[in-house]
């Protein structure tokens, strides 16, 4: 090797060492002469100038504990469920919450199966659905993403009026909260909106009729966006976790060789202007 090629290398080494050192301990911050010139107490511009991250790698001590748990998690949570070609989304800026429609449809069907009688209405809160379902093959972890909470399916009895109140409150408090069993058309103006609601077969909701309703223990016991649900009578805690209910529904589809299809649009018809007003708590009632 030629000597002159070594020299620059040595210089480079010194330079790179200097650079590295500069990263670890940058030039001390000057004492603020500005503050002194104003004759006040001396100020230090920088409180601490040492310490910089050299590399971002996994700590082997943490990985020793984590690796076996990671394998356990993967074994369960990477298990395939059914296909979901379109994905299911909560909807943004007033788009319909198709994921919420699907979840509440399943709540209604499952509650009906458990009770052995028709369940006319189901409702949950969109805040409790923590993720969208991606398009493609669903995994167990996707359902955990949607429903991480340990909430249970609960049935209650409500009047037709209370059902309409629940939907109205969902709109006034959160823009809308997803439900199954009722069709809604919102019209009129921001100051004077008109809430038109029927059962999903088009028949009228009689304010005084009593119906069975499915919801979650969270909303029945104290969630704050839909107070009408807290008025429910004769509560029955099914013992079925909301998450297990969704996992079961996906497993059933997979068994039947069917994909998870998105529910039809048009359950809630809310004009954009009225939705925006509701989100800003400006919708009259």
């Amino acid at each position, binding site marked *: 090797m030629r000597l002159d090629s070594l020299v620059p290398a040595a210089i480079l080494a010194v330079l790179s060492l200097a650079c590295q050192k500069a990263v*670890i*301990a940058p030039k*001390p*911050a000057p*004492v603020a002469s500005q503050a002194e010139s104003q004759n006040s*107490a*001396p*100020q*230090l*511009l*920088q*409180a*601490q*100038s*040492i*310490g*910089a*991250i*050299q*590399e*971002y*790698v*996994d*700590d082997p*001590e*943490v*990985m020793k*504990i*984590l690796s076996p*748990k*990671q394998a*356990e*998690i993967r074994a*369960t*949570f990477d298990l395939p469920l059914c296909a979901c070609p379109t994905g299911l989304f909560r909807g943004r800026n007033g788009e319909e919450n198709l994921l919420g429609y699907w979840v509440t449809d399943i709540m209604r069907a499952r509650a009906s199966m458990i009770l052995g009688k028709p369940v006319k209405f189901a409702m949950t809160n969109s805040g409790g659905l*923590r993720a969208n379902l*991606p398009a493609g093959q669903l995994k167990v*972890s996707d359902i*955990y993403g949607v429903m*991480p*909470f*340990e909430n249970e399916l609960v049935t209650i009895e409500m009047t037709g009026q209370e059902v309409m109140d629940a939907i109205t409150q969902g709109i006034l408090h959160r823009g809308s909260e997803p439900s199954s069993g009722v069709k809604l058309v919102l019209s009129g103006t921001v100051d004077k909106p008109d809430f038109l609601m029927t059962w999903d077969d088009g028949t009228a909701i009689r304010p005084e009729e009593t119906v069975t309703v499915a919801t979650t*223990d*969270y909303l029945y*016991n*104290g*969630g*704050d966006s839909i107070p009408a649900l807290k008025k429910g009578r004769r509560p029955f805690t099914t013992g079925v976790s909301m998450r297990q209910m969704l996992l079961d529904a996906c497993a059933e589809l997979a068994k039947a060789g069917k994909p998870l299809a998105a529910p039809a649009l048009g359950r809630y018809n809310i004009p954009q202007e009225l939705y925006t007003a509701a989100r800003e708590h400006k919708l009259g009632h």
Partner: protein
Amino acid sequence: MERRHFLASMAAAAAAAQLPLRGSEGSPASRITLLHTNDTHSHIEPFGPGNGQASGKGGMARRSTMVKQLRAAIPNLLLLDAGDTFQGTPYFNQYKGKLDFELMSKVGYDASTLGNHDFDNGVDMLLEAMEFAKFPFLNCNFDCKGAPALAKRLRPWIIKEFPGFKVGLTGVGVDFKGLVSAENHKGVDWISPDEALKPVIHHLRDVEKVDLVVLLSHMGYDLHGDAVDDLHLPKLVPGIDAIIGGHSHTFLDQPTKIQQDRGETHIFQVGWGGINLGRMDFAMIKSQVRAASGRPISVMASA
């Protein structure tokens, strides 16, 4: 030489080794670095692809390496968390928070506080998970008369001693109303944090005479109203130097400074999910904060 003087001289040596400082009093500055996280929500692994800005960031194993590097370089350092360790990934569903606290102990957390989601499985399950934590949980605004086992596990405040100075730490949590079901916080009542903090801050400042007061707050940064949040606390309870915040998942680029009757309060919060590690640095001369700085450090993969 008296121990106190010896420690003071050690502090002087340590400070001098870091960077030359001077005050008109000629006293050396005491320095401390606070590293912190909030609302990690069981994000034990880094965020996977498809998570926007967070993709590939976070993860406790990497956070641990970063903390170890900083600990090796900085003599006076505390690692803190502002609550909501629980809920958010299958790790929580599977291990009920035990793994989170076990790993936090391994990483070397000095203290944490409780957020609303830490009550998601009720008080008994929280206590079970806390068995895995080798660090104290700070809270002064939960009345645990009806939950004596939890009362035993919570500390209203602690003091950490460093060569030549003392740091007082306390914690506050958000109102359970509308966030935690009555069943899940059975036996635990909420007290307004300003009311609960006043005697604690008075004790730390005027009786224990600590040099720096740090609050771990799970109140939220800005609740856009009259509700007590991190932006309201400094003026309501003067004498807090640093608020390490959580709950609102607020990404701040630098601490927010608020003037109060006893000085300045530096409020910081670094988003959520362990995407960032917060860092606040304080330099004190004679129990007075003379300089403070802070920034988030992105928890990312080596290039």
